């Protein structure tokens, strides 16, 4: 019997065809590493949950976020049907938080996505072609870098005026330079690698080299950096709303809510802090997620 055991353990698994060797794509291996990173997974779930509550706000919010009630102003958490209390006009905080998430998350994700595409494009072009093209693009970006991002955002949005579209535009412009710089650095590193020269020596066009060999290597640092910018963008948008340069008052928005509840901080400190806590949790979640993504996307890990 021992012979049989030894025999079977020595025999290679003959039934397994040679082509069945595991084939894991790049994204497959990223997911494989992410699966065991519980902090990152928790943040991912949290972000998905926040996004879902924002998307389905009309279905799940208990009350009308715009219906005020002078009788129930600044009620504490858990008062009657008001799960998170009411604001200075007697509107349900929970409903306003759910609706406000729509604006705040849009302001966090959309400008970053736009800036990644535009800034990434400029950065890859500057990094790959170098020389005068690089100089022109990167010195232009340096002009924007000369101002602190908050100041730049205030200046642009002050001259454009309030409103969601203008706020979106402002944030996109502010986020383009840092993303451009990251893309440029990554591209100029890849540019010097021998595999780009090897691709050139096959007679490939510049466009083909950029798409097949450069973009795929530049993508992960840019995506990781972009994910850290989501929290920056949410905070910037909240700041603009707080200063009255973003969305206009009746609209529910986390930054705007924080701004208006500020005056009631001595009356209802905990209720006033709720929008701030939401901003904090969301941005930390995005930051930790990007940290985990950076580790998972490192191909040599």
């Amino acid at each position, binding site marked *: 019997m021992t012979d049989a055991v030894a025999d079977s353990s020595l025999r290679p698994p003959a039934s397994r065809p040679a082509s069945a060797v595991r084939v894991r794509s790049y994204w497959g291996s990223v997911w494989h590493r992410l699966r065991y990173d519980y902090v990152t997974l928790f943040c991912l779930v949290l972000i998905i949950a926040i996004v879902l509550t924002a998307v389905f706000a009309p279905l799940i919010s208990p009350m009308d976020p715009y219906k005020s009630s002078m009788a129930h102003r600044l009620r504490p958490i858990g008062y009657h049907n008001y799960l998170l209390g009411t604001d200075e006009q007697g509107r349900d905080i929970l409903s306003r938080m759910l609706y406000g998430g729509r604006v705040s998350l849009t302001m966090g994700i959309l400008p970053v996505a736009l800036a990644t595409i535009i800034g990434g494009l400029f950065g890859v072009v500057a990094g790959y072609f170098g020389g005068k093209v690089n100089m022109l693009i990167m010195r232009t970006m340096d002009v924007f870098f000369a101002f602190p991002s908050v100041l730049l955002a205030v200046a642009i949005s002050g001259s454009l005026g309030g409103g969601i579209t203008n706020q979106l535009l402002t944030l996109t412009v502010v986020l383009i330079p840092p993303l451009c710089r990251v893309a440029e650095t990554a591209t100029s590193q890849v540019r010097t690698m021998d*595999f780009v020269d*090897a691709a050139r*020596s096959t*007679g490939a066009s510049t466009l083909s080299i950029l798409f097949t060999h450069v973009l795929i290597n530049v993508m992960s640092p840019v995506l990781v950096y972009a994910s850290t910018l989501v929290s920056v963008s949410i905070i910037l948008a909240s700041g603009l709303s707080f200063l009255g340069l973003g969305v206009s008052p009746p609209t529910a928005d986390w930054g705007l809510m924080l701004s208006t509840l500020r005056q009631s901080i001595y009356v209802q400190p905990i209720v006033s802090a709720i929008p701030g806590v939401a901003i904090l949790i969301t941005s930390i979640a995005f930051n930790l997620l990007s940290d985990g993504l950076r580790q998972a996307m490192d*191909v040599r890990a």
Partner: protein
Amino acid sequence: MTDHMMTPRTAPVDPRDRGGPAQPMLIVDGMKKYFPIRAGVFNRKVAEVKAVDDVSFYVVKGETLGIVGESGCGKSTLARLLMHLIEKDAGELILDGDLVGGSTGVLLDGLRRALQMVFQDSSSSLNPRLPIEQSVAYGPKVQGASGKSAKAQARSLMEKVGLNPNLFGQRYPHELSGGQKQRVNIARALALAPRLLILDEAVSALDKSVEAQVLNLLGDIKKQLNLTYIFISHDLHVVRYISDRVMVMYLGQLVEIGPADQIYEAPKHPYTQALLACRLSMDPEARVDAAPLAGDPPSPVSPPSGCRFHTRCAFVEDVCKAKTPKLGDVLKLSADKHLAACHMVHPDSGHSRAPAHATAA
């Protein structure tokens, strides 16, 4: 170009052959590359690095030409110039009788198909985000092959270099050893069915046993595919093993060229003699105690006057500092001639060790 008196070679006639068996695979005439050094507010050119300075030679069909020299002597720059990866400042490239890049010559695309290169750094020469099968198939795809035929070609090439395509095809470069990566690089270079392969330190980064495997592989492939090699290395033993002819470079210039056996048995140029003296011997009694060559080579920004080697040469005389020794017309002479750019070799050069006129060969 018919005045080249080639040593007859019994290479089978290749259908791609245009110039006949006597026509050199590649003629390099007066190749120059000066890299500008820019400085100051206006980025003015303040100096030039003379990386490759007036180098002429030719490669016979079917041979392996070894190129040796210290680090920084312009070997790799020369390779990149031949591949048109960097723009040359002057010089001509004639591929199998056709001028490359000229108005009547072959287009760059033709050169790219005929000339391929294996890079030194096996890991940076493979895209870390592409499975190696796709890296190999990229060249044929660029040249218009369908995805399916490019893939089939890549798989057969991987088999040719000794990698099972079923096992390795979908792997990423970081999952391969150095030797395996270099095999992939060779497969990738072969994918466009080149006639001349430039091997730039292709085995230098590998450990000795793997190096031997890859060298044998290169020998087999050369016979199978009727290839010509330019083999660049600083490893003199390996160059002797693989090369038919050897050329020695010093500070961007060609100082000695000739059949490998003659160069190794009877080096003419004192630089070549010093290089060969640096080789490690198998005999522990014959160990090298003092370095035959002291110090670094002089700066290629302002190379020494006269003979560029005179600052480190043991036989230096006044004539070496004043006059630049000539190598002789490499392009006009036959491939089995052994030439050296040294005053001690040329009769009547004024050097005390120069042969008398009558005995000049």
